[in-house]
């Protein structure tokens, strides 16, 4: 997945993503025209809906947090040469881990219960991704297919557990009891209010800081640790890794497990930070959007922060847009996500080849 680029860094890291985004935006604009609305007005409404006032910013940052976790998860597996489409299932299981801790030890003081619940989310998400990692390393099963299958198994398992086991006694709605407030990840609103920004009722919480810490740790781990080096070697070439005395199987298992743990942390933001109880389908497709975030962010934490912010804004702005322009439904955001994956991922060579030609011609001329 990582091939040596013949392009200058600024073209690779700024111009190419910008071009990919521009063409995705252009096609999304065409869809808006097809619907019969003014695309420029739609963009204006979207930007206002995402950043125009305090509460909007709060929601944008809340979604951004989700995308940071799932984007990092996909990127980590990418560096090891694997495509983890199982973020959705891993995040779902992360919710189970967080919930089990919260229901059993939620009454403990926050400095104990919250880290325990966070660990529970990471552990369960990681365990769910360990299976495909192990299956690849020891039995040779393809990660893409096994992670897809694991998503469906996760959905069935969670539905069963929530409906039959964890459901709050004496009610029909498939969700657990509300957690003890000691295990709730505190909201950011009081902090931001002291800085003069009113976030309203936005659910953004301290998980955002956890996500940013994960970004830093990701960078240090992948580029500054011995294991990160092994990870990247395996991702570039398993044959080279074996020649260098690195065991690709072990590296794959660890990489997939950590990737699943990152996806599992999504539950910290959604379950511990916002819902305060386990509900069905809380992962809401964020796991899949992580693919778009990782591709757009070029698998680097800085890029992932920018891409997550972009998708967070699209999510929040998109729902506001759907409210202001009833002709445009919220599904439009899904179209844009798909287009970004198409142009930034599947069709990345579309602009790369012409740009590489151009660059080499300029170098010859010089």
């Amino acid at each position: 997945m990582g091939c040596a680029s013949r392009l200058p860094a600024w073209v690779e890291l700024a111009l190419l993503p910008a071009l990919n985004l521009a063409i995705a935006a252009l096609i999304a604009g065409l869809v808006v025209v097809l619907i019969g609305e003014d695309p420029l007005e739609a963009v204006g409404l979207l930007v206002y809906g995402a950043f125009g006032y305090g509460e909007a910013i709060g929601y944008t940052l809340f979604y951004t947090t989700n995308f940071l976790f799932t984007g990092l998860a996909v990127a980590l597996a990418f560096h090891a040469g694997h495509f983890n489409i199982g973020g959705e299932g891993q995040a779902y299981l992360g919710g189970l881990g967080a919930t089990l801790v919260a229901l059993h030890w939620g009454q403990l003081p926050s400095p104990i219960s919250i880290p325990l619940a966070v660990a529970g989310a990471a552990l369960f998400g990681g365990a769910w991704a360990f299976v495909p990692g192990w299956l690849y390393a020891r039995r040779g099963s393809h990660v893409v297919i096994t992670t897809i299958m694991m998503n469906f198994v996760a959905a069935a398992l969670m539905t069963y557990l929530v409906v039959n086991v964890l459901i709050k006694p004496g009610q029909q709605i498939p969700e657990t009891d509300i957690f003890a407030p000691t295990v709730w990840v505190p909201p950011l609103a009081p902090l931001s209010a002291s800085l003069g920004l009113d976030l309203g009722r936005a659910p953004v919480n301290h998980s955002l800081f956890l996500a940013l810490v994960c970004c830093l740790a990701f960078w240090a781990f992948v580029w500054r640790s011995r294991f990160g080096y092994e990870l990247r070697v395996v991702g570039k070439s398993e044959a080279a890794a074996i020649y260098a005395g690195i065991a690709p199987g072990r590296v794959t298992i660890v990489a997939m497990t950590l990737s699943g743990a990152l996806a599992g942390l999504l539950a910290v933001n959604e379950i511990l930070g916002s819902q305060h109880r386990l509900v069905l389908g809380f992962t809401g497709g964020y796991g899949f959007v992580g693919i778009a975030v990782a591709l757009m962010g070029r698998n680097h934490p800085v890029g992932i922060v920018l891409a997550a912010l972009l998708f967070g804004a699209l999510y929040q702005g998109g729902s506001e847009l759907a409210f202001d322009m009833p002709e445009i439904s919220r599904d439009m955001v899904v179209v844009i996500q798909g287009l970004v994956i198409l142009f930034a991922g599947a069709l990345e060579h579309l602009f790369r080849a012409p740009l590489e030609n151009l660059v080499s011609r300029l170098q010859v001329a010089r």
Partner: protein
Amino acid sequence: MDAIWLQTLLLADSTVRLATPLVFCALAGLLSERAGVVNIALEGKMLGGAFAAAAAAAVTGSAWIGLLAACTFACALALLHGFATITHRGEQVVSGVAINIVVAGLGPTLADAWFGQAGRIPLPGSDARFAPIELPGAGGAPAIPVLGPLYAEVVSGHNLLVYLAVAAVPTVAWILAKTRFGLRLRAVGESPEAVDTAGIGVEALRYAALLSAGLLCGLAGAYLSIAQNAGFIRDMTAGKGFLALAALIFGKWRPVPAVLACLLFAFADAAQVRLQGTPLPFVGTVPTQAIQALPYLLTLLLLAGFVGRAVAPRALGRPYVKDR
């Protein structure tokens, strides 16, 4: 005795109905994966077909135009898939995911804007749907013991697309096994270099495989929205494309075993609806979700090599780069 026989027949009947879209999609997956292109976009192409069929049938009132629209749109998606993976040698899995997500968003968006029914497209009249076909003699058949009800309940009374799926199985199997195109298609999935050396175009073959797969996905989509159901709703494929993919792998990328896997998964689904809450001998009440997860668990076990071994086409997932 008659009551049990009738229950069995009804179960077989709903198995056939549930298996139809799986069979179309598994055959589609078979064609593209045997040619070396990973097709996790079956879901999206089928959903696209369902949307196009319902939209065209709702506007024109004709099921045939709906069918045509479904196949056209699914083939257009296949062309896009080919453009990304064959022409530009893009990552096959990523492009599949992209197509799935674009279609999942585009269907409800356009349905909402054009029909104003919160992402749904209802069909206006009965002409916009493929009606059940009563085969000759089905009316009087139940009078004949045992085989009569079988003919009347299971064989007769399906819509055209079900029979088309039944016909598609031997057709695709024959094309793959016995024709020159089929031989070349299998070769391009195992060793594109050899195909290229023999002077046959790798790209054209893979495009042909993807397009025929697109056609089959279009049929599957049309079945969902203008035959089995009356109209389009969001996410109406509900993972059937991935289930078909699981069946394809479970059938080890061979037509007949793959179709049998489709029937098995469809049977599990049909039985699950009937069994809800009923205790079974030896195991007690089986949770619905356990049966829903069963196909995926079986496929995982197979992939892990615990039940047989599934060997993928050798060049699967690898874009072909011609040596210079």
